């Protein structure tokens, strides 16, 4: 293993995060606070409670996941797309690094950033609503797994994209709708049964459900299923990344 290369890539990407602190950290925190004000305080005050917890508290895990998902994808896709765009990727490709090291460097940095962000949002939420985490270790497990999985997914998008439009397309058209429809703001059990079945095809449902369980022990689907689906999606992303580097897809041709 070329640990120095992993370290170099990781620190380079983290340096980019600190340089763009306002955009990376502050803006998601501000937008999440807005959600709390609008959904938690304004609308939430008219909703008594969902599954035994107040509405404002109920939406916290979903909001954290929403940010972690979108930020993981955004960070990782931009992190690898930008060197491709400006051409500095030549150096990564000509360096004595394996693709595993490249992925650990880029995906590790993107995941780190969104985990930090998730924790900051939780801390922000604690200012608005009482927050109690039943299973902190499971909470962290889901947080880390989700951050890593979606950073990998973002990495794949960043390699696939050959323009800024494509870079935005998947997050805008697929990921955002899936997260909003994935139970961030409601329990899947609140839906009519037909819609409920359709919702179960949405992978994000499993992430949010598992994550919410670690907070309040309430879940739409079983925790084992949540964990299994998350790991399954992680495995799919890993296979895709392996294929990309094996064939040199969009990198070496």
């Amino acid at each position: 293993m070329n640990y120095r290369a992993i370290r170099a890539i990781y620190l380079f990407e983290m340096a980019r995060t600190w340089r763009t602190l306002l955009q990376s950290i502050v803006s998601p925190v501000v937008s999440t606070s807005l959600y709390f004000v609008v959904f938690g305080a304004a609308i939430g005050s008219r909703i008594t409670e969902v599954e035994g917890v107040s509405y404002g508290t109920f939406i916290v895990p979903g909001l954290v996941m929403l940010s972690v998902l979108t930020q993981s994808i955004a960070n990782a896709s931009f992190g690898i797309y930008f060197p491709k765009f400006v051409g500095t990727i030549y150096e990564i490709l000509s360096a004595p690094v394996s693709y595993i090291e490249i992925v650990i460097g880029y995906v590790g940095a993107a995941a780190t950033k969104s985990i930090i962000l998730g924790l900051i949002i939780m801390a922000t939420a604690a200012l608005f609503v009482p927050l109690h985490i039943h299973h902190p270790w499971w909470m962290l497990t889901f947080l880390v797994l989700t951050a890593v999985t979606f950073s990998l997914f973002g990495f794949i998008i960043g390699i696939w994209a050959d323009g800024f439009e494509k870079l935005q397309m998947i997050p805008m058209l697929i990921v955002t709708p899936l997260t909003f429809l994935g139970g961030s703001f409601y329990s899947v059990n609140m839906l009519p049964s037909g819609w409920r079945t359709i919702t179960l095809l949405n992978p994000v449902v499993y992430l949010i459900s598992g994550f919410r369980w670690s907070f309040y022990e309430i879940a739409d689907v079983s925790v084992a299923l949540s964990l299994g689906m998350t790991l399954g999606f992680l495995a799919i992303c890993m296979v895709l990344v392996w294929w990309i580097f094996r064939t040199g897809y969009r990198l070496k041709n």
Partner: protein
Amino acid sequence: MLAPPPIISVSNLSKTYGSGFKALKGINLDIKRGEIFALLGPNGAGKTTLISIICGIANLSEGRVTVGGHDINSDYRAARSLIGLVPQELHTDSFETVWATVSFSRGLFGKPKNPAHIEKVLKDLSLWDKKDSKIITLSGGMKRRVMIAKALSHEPQILFLDEPTAGVDVELRKGMWDVVRGLQASGVTIILTTHYIQEAEEMADRIGVINKGEIILVEDKAGLMQKLGKKQLTLHLQQKIEAIPPALAPYKLQLSSDGRLLTYDYDTKGERTGITSLLTDLRNAGIHISDLDTTQSSLEDIFVSLVRAP
């Protein structure tokens, strides 16, 4: 005595792009350890593709490449560790400092930190006073040198310079070549492509010409000049003449329009240049010369004639 093994060995290398375009066709090329090798060729000849494959930026379609005896695919770590690459385009980060970006390159190549080495590289390239500047604030020539510094940060044994002096002013260019000569003296093998043929002529030990994805020729520079170099003898006459005497016809001389200059083309590789007999025959014909000079065709002339040949 056996020749030492080449530091880079390219055998039967072909590259076909997804579009079906064959960029390289069965290239065979050995680079000797410690030499400066200049690769010349018109735009689109395959120079950059060849370099990209050796450095790991592009996949090869067929053939085999070894660097320092290591296969570039099966043993890519060992192969790539030996190479520093300065690509043709100015690809730099914008918001990093010079020091950070050069240190990053060293880490990427798995080398432990060595501030003293990076300091030396930056000083050699006259970048030391810019070490804390963001790259975006630098001029084009400085960015080019930052890229060279990045390539040298991990102490490579082989340096690829793809059009290194494009867009660099004359003084800087000279400075850059001093650095290259210094590197060669320290044992680094250098492969460069350039559009400035005088540069190849001045710098290179050997020259390869590539055209349409094929290596047309690889030759010692001196050998190439000798093999293909035509020389021209110009004779300044004391008195002008109206026509070339018939006795001198075999020499295929050319007379200038003012009748005062005779030019004679000869081949340096011929056993007999014919100069002595020409001078004798001139005297016999009663033509007296006041001065003479010779010129040798430059690498540029040779290059143009090679690439134009069908």
